[in-house]
């Protein structure tokens, strides 16, 4: 299996594609072209793309675009998608108001 650990490996030049303007991360409005460019900047993992571009950092936390980002990286690096880890899952599962998350009161109705 091809390794992506050597970050200086030649992945070829960035070649623009006709659908680079498509939005992949809807929450943060990150396009396919921006993600492909980030891969050529050296971001070879889903975590790195997320931190570099904010793709998957919005309200849905990457539940919509996570797989798409992973497939884009795999295609650009010419590896199989299963070789890439998904971004780290973070609590809470759904956005939650501070006054709710911080509530210590327990009411037994």
């Amino acid at each position, binding site marked *: 299996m091809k390794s992506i650990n050597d*970050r200086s490996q030649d992945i070829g030049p960035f070649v623009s594609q006709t659908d680079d303007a498509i939005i992949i991360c809807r929450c943060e409005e990150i396009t396919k072209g921006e993600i492909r460019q980030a891969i050529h900047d050296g*971001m070879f993992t889903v975590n790195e793309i997320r931190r570099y571009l904010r793709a998957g950092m919005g309200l849905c936390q990457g539940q919509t675009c996570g797989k798409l980002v992973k497939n884009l990286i795999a295609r650009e690096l010419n590896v199989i998608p299963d070789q890439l880890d998904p971004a*780290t899952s973070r609590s809470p599962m759904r956005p939650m108001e*501070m006054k709710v998350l911080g509530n210590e009161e327990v009411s037994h109705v």
Partner: protein
Amino acid sequence: MSKHLSKYNDVIIIGGGIIGNATAYYLAKKGLSVTVLEASKDIGIGGSSRNGGGVRQSGRDTRELPLAMWGIKNLWPGLSEELGVDVEYTQKGNLRLGKTAAHQKILQGLTDKAVSCGLDVRMINGDEIRAINPYLSDEVTCASWCPTDGHANPLTATLGYYKKARELGVRFITESPCFELRKIKGVIRQVVTPDAIYEADKVLVAAGFDSRKILATVGIDVPMMPLKMECLVTEAEPPMFLQMLGTADADFYGHQSKHGSFVFGGSSGFEHLNKDNGSPISSSIGASCTCRGIIKYFPALADAKIVRAWAGWLDDCADHVPVISPVEEVPGLYITCAFSGHGFGIAPAVGYNVAEMIADGHSTIDLSALRYDRFKPKQ
């Protein structure tokens, strides 16, 4: 398993966090060949991208304050342009908040020390605080105010240094943990990983808490322990304030990012007793406790939604100040670790000065107070 001997480099850096990446960048700028070895799959996966983003001078120990002041004057203002990545540096001051007489005493002590080092920082009262930040509750009665402090984005700063160093020819290898440092004829020479042995004249260990077991292979020890801390972030909110915030007890800190989200870190009081899961996982009590703290300081944020919480480890030093030092006992070996939770803001200055130390034998800022052999038993 057979290990191939990798090609020679001027410098091997162990650790792909912001300190390793920044040092690699400044060394490459000087024309040296550098390889960075990262143990995990991701660049900047440790404290570098888990911290609260403070770029502070106030509240620092006087031994690291000159480094902080120099970096804020000389590196941070031009960093986005230099790296070609928006590091979101915002220099709109730091409020370190207090509610009690005990807090006032802590803040006054920190302020007096910083003033003696030439820093523009002063104590202000509740009215002055709310003139700067009208969202703070009436519980806040005193603060230290340093107008030249600020914050930045740890994620883009860490990966920005990586991107730029890589462009300059620095080789980065992930999933390459260092098992052993080896001396040849009394000087550092080899770095042993599962797949290869790397050779260099100089080796920098910049691996956070993991530096301890790496340094142990050449008989060097830095007295530090891992300490888990937790952070959280809200959805994007309308712009409210631009200052960096902290507290006298250092139990709460945060800022509003350029994106609009609020990033806050806080402690539940159980950090030193956290279960070591082998990876930094948020506890069930951390985020809730921090939310209660935030609401007391900022009642207006009670309805802001938390979208994400995370945890990370500090490499907490015996005296809570980093080790940035050459190791004379092992010629060619250098250490940058034990940043104790306040490494991000000084990272560019550390990278710049350590690159000078490695390449030129001396640095712009005198780092002798941060030596690795400063720790003495009690008398």
